[in-house]
């Protein structure tokens, strides 16, 4: 009987000690595992911390599905998500309106309405940056062949130009990946022209391009990838819109905003200033210069007067 009594006593002591404290719930911030998502989450965290919230930093949390389940199951309160990603993955059994994903405003409105209705999630103001997939080439290569847009690239391919493209497997195989570009711009890449890196990230495909592995001369990339700056590559523009719009946006559980209605007014101005160029620079400072995401996020907020 003695061990039980001791255990009970310990529990009582623990609980009574516990009850003597008590403080407000922290805001739990998650992120995906790549640099941009981490930096965005840190921006959210430091901005809120500055006005007195307690922050529980859960970055990096995992892939898209882990973050989404965590948010839906109230394991975290917020994480930055991309509009295009959400439309592509979270509504598998819904027929989305034609052309929705290529229209930034319509995409956002759709998510604002339906994610609130279905999962009680609130999308705050999106950033103007569009972190879409794209094609990157070396600057010398672009200059030699006069490449700036995907139209130029299609012309180069159709004229019989050599291509070896480093890409992740998903981008190579999904209908809204390389295939969407091929259809819209009218060119075709043979299987032999693809160097597929399983689960490859832009950092990895760009590294392959930099090292010229297997004569790689094109690489899959994100438009805002910091490594593009490091390697001095050129990202070909997508004037016809082959890709969905990927605007990064803080997504909150609506209960959190209901309880703290001042949050949108704090975060919206910050996100509105995040253009492709800004994100590329922030990403580069982490990936290329080797600064920590915390230092980069804090100094950005300070320099732009978001911290008091």
């Amino acid at each position: 009987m003695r061990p039980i009594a001791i255990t009970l006593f310990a529990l009582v002591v623990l609980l009574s000690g516990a009850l003597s404290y008590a403080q407000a719930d922290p805001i739990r911030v998650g992120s995906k595992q790549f640099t941009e998502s981490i930096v965005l989450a840190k921006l959210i965290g430091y901005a809120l911390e500055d006005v007195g919230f307690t922050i529980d930093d859960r970055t990096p949390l995992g892939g898209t599905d882990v973050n989404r389940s965590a948010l839906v199951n109230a394991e975290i309160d917020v994480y930055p998500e991309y509009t295009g990603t959400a439309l592509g993955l979270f509504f598998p059994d819904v027929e989305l309106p034609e052309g929705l994903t290529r229209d930034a405003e319509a995409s956002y409105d759709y998510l604002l309405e339906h994610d609130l209705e279905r999962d009680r999630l609130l999308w705050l103001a999106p950033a103007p940056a569009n972190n879409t997939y794209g094609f990157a080439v070396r600057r010398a290569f672009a200059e030699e062949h006069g490449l700036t847009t995907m139209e130029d690239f299609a012309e180069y391919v159709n004229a019989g130009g050599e291509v070896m493209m480093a890409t992740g497997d998903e981008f190579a195989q999904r209908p809204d990946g390389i295939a969407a570009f091929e259809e819209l711009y009218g060119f075709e890449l043979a299987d032999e022209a693809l160097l597929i890196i399983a689960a490859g990230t832009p950092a990895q495909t760009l590294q392959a391009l930099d090292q010229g592995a297997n004569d790689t001369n094109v690489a899959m990339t994100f438009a805002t990838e910091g490594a593009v700056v490091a390697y001095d590559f050129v990202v070909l523009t997508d004037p016809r819109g082959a890709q969905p719009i990927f605007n990064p946006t803080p997504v909150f559980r609506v209960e959190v905003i209901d309880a703290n209605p001042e949050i949108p007014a704090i975060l919206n101005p910050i996100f509105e200033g995040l253009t492709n160029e800004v994100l590329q620079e922030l990403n580069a400072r982490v990936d290329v210069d080797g600064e920590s995401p915390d230092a980069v996020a804090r100094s950005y907020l300070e320099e732009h007067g978001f911290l008091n």
Partner: protein
Amino acid sequence: MPVNRVAVLGSLIAGLSLFFLPLVELKPNRLASGIPFFLLQFEGDVRYLALFVLALLPLVVALRRADVVRGALLAGLGNALLFLTLYLPAVAGEVLLADAAAWLGEGVRLSNPRLLPSAGLALGLFGAYTVLYGGLRDLVVAGAPRSLRVAAAWGGLLLVVLAALSGRFDVYSVVVEFQARGQQLAQRTVEHVMFVAVALSIGLVLGVGLGLWAHRDRRASPVILYLVGIIQTVPSLALFGVLLVPLARLGDQLATSVALALVASLALAAAALALYRTIGQRLRGAARQVVLLLVTVSAAVPVALFTVVVASFSFRVSLLAFTSAAPALANLRSAMLVALIAAVGLQLAVRRQRVDTARRSLARAAWVGWGALAVTLVVALVTASQLFLARVESAATLTVRDLGVSGIGPAPAVIALTLYSLLPLVRNTYAGLTNVDPAVIDSGRGMGMSAPQRFMQIELPLALPVIMAGVRNASVALVGIAAIATVIGAGGLGDFILGGIINTSIDQILLGAIPAVLLAVLLDAVLRATEQLLVSPGIRVSGEAAPS
């Protein structure tokens, strides 16, 4: 022993790789690749060639006759080579970094340029260590004094650590990375250690229990061993996915209702067991199986629930105990450190002491030291629990999430790690107990030991070496698996490793991998020392007590 072949091999490896392979790569920034540099490309003076000469000197020494002098010379050369292979390129690197812009040319983003150690340097270190190892072997064979052996084994490493602390290695890319992200390194390392420690402690209780059950119950043993084997084959990512939703749901529940459910389930198990005891003999076939299954399930569910809560809670609390900045905990940590150092010191002194009475009082003092360590640890954990539960307003609103159970984060990681630790622990406990000589158990029985006495005094001590081998297996494996915890946001050194893979930053990978390797080695050494303390010299495999 004629020629010291080990030293010759090390010397050749070091000499050839230092001379023919690039030592470092000058990188303009964290990502972009840079320019390789060979030993002969280092500008300045001839001192860099000394490295090459030093690498080949062991060839001459290794031909001497085997004695303490040869061992000392080889160990000295190995240590010098170990240090200089890191030090000289760093000195040359400072010059290179100063001229980085000129070397790398236009068009690259030159920010935080750094030196990535290349193949030549890595193989050079390996060769240096091989020479050192050859020397140490000579010293051991020749029966050199202990102090000389210790100095020979650790001297070079000490120089490296001192140079690193004084900032001489700041040019190397891992150090640059450390300076940018190092603030998190301590926290991540503590998380990693806590993952392993908590999972191992709980796994030990469960694993030894299951192993004992498998040993006692012939019918259960294949089922138990099969099940823990199956767990091992589930990929950790899948396991995290499986755990996410139920743990999140469990987290939402009120602690009081879960406790009630727990008690109810245990009562059901007890009732079913009582039923089985009374009418079980008369039941046949299927009915009997059903009752047995009912007992097992209704007993297993609360055990599993309880384990989940205990594992999650202990992880959060022990992490807090070792990282919280609260002054009470900081003081307790200092006290723990003092107690640990005192206890280890006394324990070492016990071994040296030859006089019987002095030895006994030293041993008693050492136990007091260990006791003090245990007490401060418990106090720290209690204090940390209070801190952790500080947010809870009342026992009535206490949810399981407040106890640390959640669908993402440390809870599923600790639970998954606990499950992964089971196979080596269960298997080794089972094997250890099963392999105890039946004659020994029979004489214990014949001398009038009760079953618990036989277990504690005979079976457990005799199975201990095998069980401890399982503990070491499990712990080293866990250090590796814990790196996956980052994918559910649980932290740990995996943050650096996986982040580095995603970002193709070798420096970031190394920042996580090097501490993980050191951790595994250290843990193994600590567990070996524990084994030395716990296992009787009479059955130690490599003890001093050899048959006479």
